[in-house]
């Protein structure tokens, strides 16, 4: 099957759209909420949204290839790896867009350059640029807020617009008088003052988090507890509009595993975490979009140690009631030797910025000039405006 007929085959089901991917984003009513989930380490898209319909797939992955029976088929050609099976609910309710053969606009197999480009939203790695989520807060009308629910401030949310951060640490209790006095001391330090004020404000919401299950920063409960916390901040009527979350552990150079293996367990935590988030958001879910991305895909072939090395094209997700309809969105390049980028990676055919431009335009009802200010230098990159309806 050549690429053209593979594409044709993809279209027959009427679910996946291929020619030029068109995914519509809704004019979500209300304020709009956006959650950007960064999977640090480069997660293996080919082992998450599995192209079992590509004739080269099985030969290429060899012992690491999944059969059709081992995945939850989304359409005739792609299936979700077993860890992501809980997301079939999202698929059935038209809340899941899987993106594939996607990449940042710069070819690098470096974690750090890759993350810097994805997080700054620029076309090249550059020293000290603001993150794109921070620029989004700067260009939106009105007083918008952003929060990192993460250990540390992700680059994507860093920048000139003041933002908050929170993570579920169980530290010693302190009284308000002490914090007030400390706040007075911080007022004398212009480099730190805003940040300490932001931390004080978050304490008003944080006490609710005591009942979060599974706490801790590691282990299976961690994704779930971070997602729960994020929902509790965002669902407030005056809660943040933008949240940055990040999970690591995706750099699977060795023993990546199959069903129940290393990668699959991470995918399962992610899947459950997103469903928990959706449940916790309650009514506010209607205005919410979750985007899941990573800095690069991994090699199309397994390496010598039952893992995969740093690659190029990969997968991602847009999740929420605002997506036009469930779909696998990819201008699928195929996995034949000739089709692979430099003979080793999935060829990227979709720019992460195109997706993000469509998502923010739809979620926050932005003009194209606002969107282009969030992603400077991307005027020629057409946003996938119709990812959302």
């Amino acid at each position: 099957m050549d690429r053209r007929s593979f594409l044709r085959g993809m279209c027959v089901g009427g679910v996946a759209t291929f020619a030029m991917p068109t995914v519509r984003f809704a004019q979500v009513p209300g304020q709009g909420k956006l959650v950007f989930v960064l999977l640090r380490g480069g997660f293996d898209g080919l082992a998450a949204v599995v192209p079992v319909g590509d004739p080269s797939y099985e030969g290429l992955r060899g012992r690491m290839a999944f059969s059709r029976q081992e995945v939850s088929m989304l359409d005739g050609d792609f299936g979700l790896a077993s860890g992501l099976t809980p997301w079939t609910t999202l698929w059935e309710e038209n809340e899941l867009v899987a993106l594939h053969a996607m990449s940042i606009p710069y070819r690098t197999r470096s974690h750090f350059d890759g993350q810097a480009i994805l997080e700054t939203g620029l076309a090249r790695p550059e020293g000290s640029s603001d993150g794109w989520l921070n620029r989004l807060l700067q260009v939106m009308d009105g007083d918008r807020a952003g929060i990192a629910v993460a250990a540390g401030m992700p680059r994507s949310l860093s920048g000139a617009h003041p933002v908050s951060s929170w993570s579920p640490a169980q530290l010693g209790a302190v009284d308000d008088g002490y914090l007030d006095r400390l706040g007075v001391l911080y007022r004398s330090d212009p480099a730190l003052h805003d940040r300490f004020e932001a931390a004080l404000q978050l304490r008003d919401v944080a006490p609710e988090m005591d009942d979060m299950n599974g706490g801790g920063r590691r282990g299976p409960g961690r994704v779930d507890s971070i997602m729960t916390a994020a929902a509790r901040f965002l669902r407030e009527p005056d809660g943040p509009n933008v949240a940055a979350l990040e999970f690591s552990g995706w750099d699977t150079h060795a023993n990546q595993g199959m069903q129940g293996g290393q990668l699959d367990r991470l995918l399962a935590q992610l899947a459950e975490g997103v469903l928990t988030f959706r449940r916790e958001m309650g009514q506010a879910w209607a205005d919410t979009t979750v985007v899941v991305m990573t800095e690069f895909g991994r090699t199309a072939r397994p390496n010598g140690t039952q893992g995969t090395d740093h690659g190029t094209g990969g997968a991602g997700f847009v999740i929420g009631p605002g997506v036009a309809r469930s779909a696998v969105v990819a201008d699928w390049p195929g996995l034949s030797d000739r089709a692979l980028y430099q003979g080793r990676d999935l060829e990227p055919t979709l720019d992460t910025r195109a997706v993000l431009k469509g998502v923010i335009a739809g979620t926050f009802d932005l003009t194209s000039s606002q969107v282009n200010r969030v992603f400077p230098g991307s005027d020629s990159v057409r946003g996938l405006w119709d990812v959302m309806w």
Partner: protein
Amino acid sequence: MRREMRALNRFGLGARIGEAERLNDPKGWVLSQLSGSSRAGSWASDLPSLAEAGDVFSALRRARAQRDQAALAEARAALREHAVRESTAMLSERVRTERPFLERWVAFWSNHLCVSTAAKQQVAALAGHYERQAIRPHVLGRFDELVLATARHPAMLFYLDNFQSIGPESQAGRRTARRGRARGLNENYARELLELHTVGVDGGYAQDDVEALARILTGWTVDGVGPGSTQEASMRFVFRAVLHEPGDKTVLGRRYRASGVGEGEHVIRDLCGRPETARFLAAKLVRHFVSDDPPPGAVDEIAEVFTSSGGDLQRVAEALVDLPDVWETPHRKFRTPQEWIVAVLRAAHFDDVPDSVPQLLRQLRHTPWAPSSPKGYGDTRGEWADPEALMSRAELARSMSRRFVGRRGNGGLDAAQLLSVVAPEDADAVRGLLTDSSIGMDERVALAIGGPAFQWR
């Protein structure tokens, strides 16, 4: 007093109460710390040998392989105990040392060439030994010897997967291919050796260079863990020719004739000597010791010394101390959590770290030898001074002031005295509250160490 504070805080690990007043020649004091051996002193004599570390490591692997839950729980407990012992010993030395600049220098290179327990728990068995035996002895020697020592240490070989990388055309590679069990190359270490350890991401290499370097390094493995090991092996570095990819290889335009382990030694020395490496390291050093935005002139100066001295790290350290920017300009650096805790304990004249410190560092996301990636921990304000981190420090300052810091000395620590260990301009802003007798003394101590003045070096 400003030069004294620069010496003690910028190059040291934090001033002790009363120390600045006794310092006659701040710069001379910093430089004098570079004479003598950099090896670990008597404090390390009882710490585990490689064989003992290997036992902890192997017990966990064995229990995992056998899926023996009881043995696994026991091995994990042993690993935790071992890790706490190692990190407590290391941190205690930082608290009590009279050569704090040397300890900072060790910490910098240990982080630059980091191994981490974050992705692979078992690294915890080896990380302390790695810093003591691969990093420490070489930090005042040549950079290439330092990198070669890390390349040969089991912690690095295991952490970045090189121990299991097999040349596809090697004897072992062809044999496994015939049996239909294709095992082969893993390029993880080769890539980070270029990107993070030597020439840097802008060092001009391409994917072909990464792969060629990975081929060169096939066979660099760990006896007892890597392919071809026996049960009773030693956990030492070993070069196994049967895993090594045959043939000549080309990295960054230079051809390496097939010569086994010699290829790797040769290419690592070449990478360490490249001008891109000098620039990359100089910028990182100046960022660490001077400013988050390294002044270009200072970077040029350090790169020049690095190159002209053949990568002599003692000369590079001296050149950093000689930079006018360090002493004259108003730059300051935000303390990392480890630097902050160590500075608190030094200020209060502790001799070692309380048992709870590893846990505190975990809460502050700065567990020793556990960065989330091979890039190591960052050292800029942007990476550490987010709101949540400041609140965590505020909370920990309060709990430390109650639990131990406040109880030091005769009748407790005096908060106002703590102002003598921070820069005078920072101290003035907070003096009022710290001498307010309507606030309890242990809270005032918390305000001193949790407040903004104490967060900078």
